């Protein structure tokens, strides 16, 4: 039977840790949660799996593949995102590749000296990590882990040790917590700060920051921009956060994160030492029952 649960009870980080420690091979699928009227054992609204949100594959405790429903993880998109193919090259390849899968395309691109094998592995690895780091910040969603399942024969697998991913993911979760205080959800919009023209003077933006800037408009939600620029939630939030912190853009309709109440600490009681004779008597009794 597959392992099933919800990320609100059992986080992606814990799942990665479980896979790492038990050296598992299999496929983790994360779904959008559809909230039902039923309550679970912790009295929270029960969620059933809806649309597939992401897939992560593992081989003997190592991460080998990841894809997300809201991101194009085809090799063309991944190489385009990594700057190894320009938009025009990507468009032409999409038109011509027909039924050719990622592995076949990779062989042709290497053969034609468009890219090297190293370029492909680095781009795919980065894409896997972007997706996984983003999934590590998810607060909820049903999941299922199927042992010994694979993502398919035509995807490119890149083995990645999980321990550094878990450590880096933990750091990013902390960072994401800070970012979430400023950007509560993906339904916020962006606008340029007052005197934006002067503020942008002499500022050197990164390529990813430039990708966002044209869409800064209160009419566009961050969710819409994320889809257009093909970035993960964490990626786009980090960029918007840095632009906001630099005073270049402002966030419209930001929601405040929920603060959970904490249980008070309880006092401790000293233990009562048992007698060995008593324990042995109970053992004998139980054995005879």
């Amino acid at each position, binding site marked *: *039977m597959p*392992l*099933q*649960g*919800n990320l*609100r*009870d*059992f986080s992606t980080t*814990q799942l990665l*840790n*479980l896979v790492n*420690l*038990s050296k598992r091979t299999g496929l983790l699928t994360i779904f959008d949660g559809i909230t039902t009227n*039923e*309550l*679970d*054992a*912790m*009295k*929270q609204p029960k969620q059933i799996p809806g649309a597939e949100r992401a897939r992560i594959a593992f081989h003997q405790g190592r991460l080998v593949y990841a894809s997300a429903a809201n991101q194009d993880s085809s090799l063309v998109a991944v190489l385009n995102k990594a700057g190894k193919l320009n938009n025009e090259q990507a468009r032409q390849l999409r038109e011509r590749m027909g039924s050719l899968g990622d592995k076949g395309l990779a062989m042709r691109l290497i053969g034609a000296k468009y890219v090297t094998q190293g370029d492909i592995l680095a781009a795919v690895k980065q894409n896997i990590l972007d997706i996984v780091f983003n999934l590590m910040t998810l607060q909820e969603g049903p999941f299922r882990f199927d042992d010994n399942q694979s993502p398919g024969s035509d995807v490119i697998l890149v083995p990645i040790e999980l321990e550094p991913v878990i450590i880096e993911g933990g750091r990013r979760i902390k960072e994401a917590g800070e970012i979430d205080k400023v950007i509560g959800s993906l339904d916020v919009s962006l606008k340029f700060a007052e005197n934006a023209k002067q503020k942008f003077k002499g500022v050197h933006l990164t390529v990813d920051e430039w990708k966002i800037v044209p869409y800064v408009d209160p009419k566009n939600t961050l969710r819409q921009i994320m889809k257009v620029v093909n970035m993960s939630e964490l990626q786009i939030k980090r960029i918007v956060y840095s632009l906001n912190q630099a005073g270049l853009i402002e966030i419209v309709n930001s929601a405040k994160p929920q603060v959970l109440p904490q249980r008070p600490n*309880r*006092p*401790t*009681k*000293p*233990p*009562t030492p*048992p007698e*060995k004779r*008593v*324990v*042995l*008597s*109970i*053992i*004998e*009794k*139980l*054995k005879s*029952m």
Partner: protein
Amino acid sequence: MQTVKMVVTGPFSSGKTEFIRSISEIQVVSTEKSLSKDTAEAAQKEATTVAMDFGRITVDDELTLFLFGTPGQRRFDFMWEILAEGMLGFIVMVDSSKPETFREAKTILETFRAYAPTPYVVAANKQDHPDAWKPEDLRIVLRLDPEVKLLPCIAKDRDSVRQVLLELLYTILEEMETN
């Protein structure tokens, strides 16, 4: 007459009452109350333990073992500390088929450890359920040290319950010998 006490704790509906019921020589003095039909818990279980379950095993003329089951609902957790006082050891029941309760189980385990650092074991209950997580996976998710005993359990099966109690007693003996 000497009496000793063991506590069976765990999240709501993890099988504590059934565990005690399976081994107790008297009909369990259960303080379970029927849940009103409109509550969320009603869907999980017909009745819940309000204050505590109470079972008994008479060892001999001079010694009796009492088993106390804690209430699983957090609004009765003021009872936990009272029940924990003077216990020989405790068992943390985990419903292996309900991952939403694992975090609660871990919190309860840590709370009881703080009350009294007495020996304990963890029982991975409902191992006969098709959705049950395996004990080795539960060990990782509950972050249990390798020396902590995590035992497969089916609370409605007397032999399984007896084995869990015996393992707790062996742990108590081991700790006595170490100290």
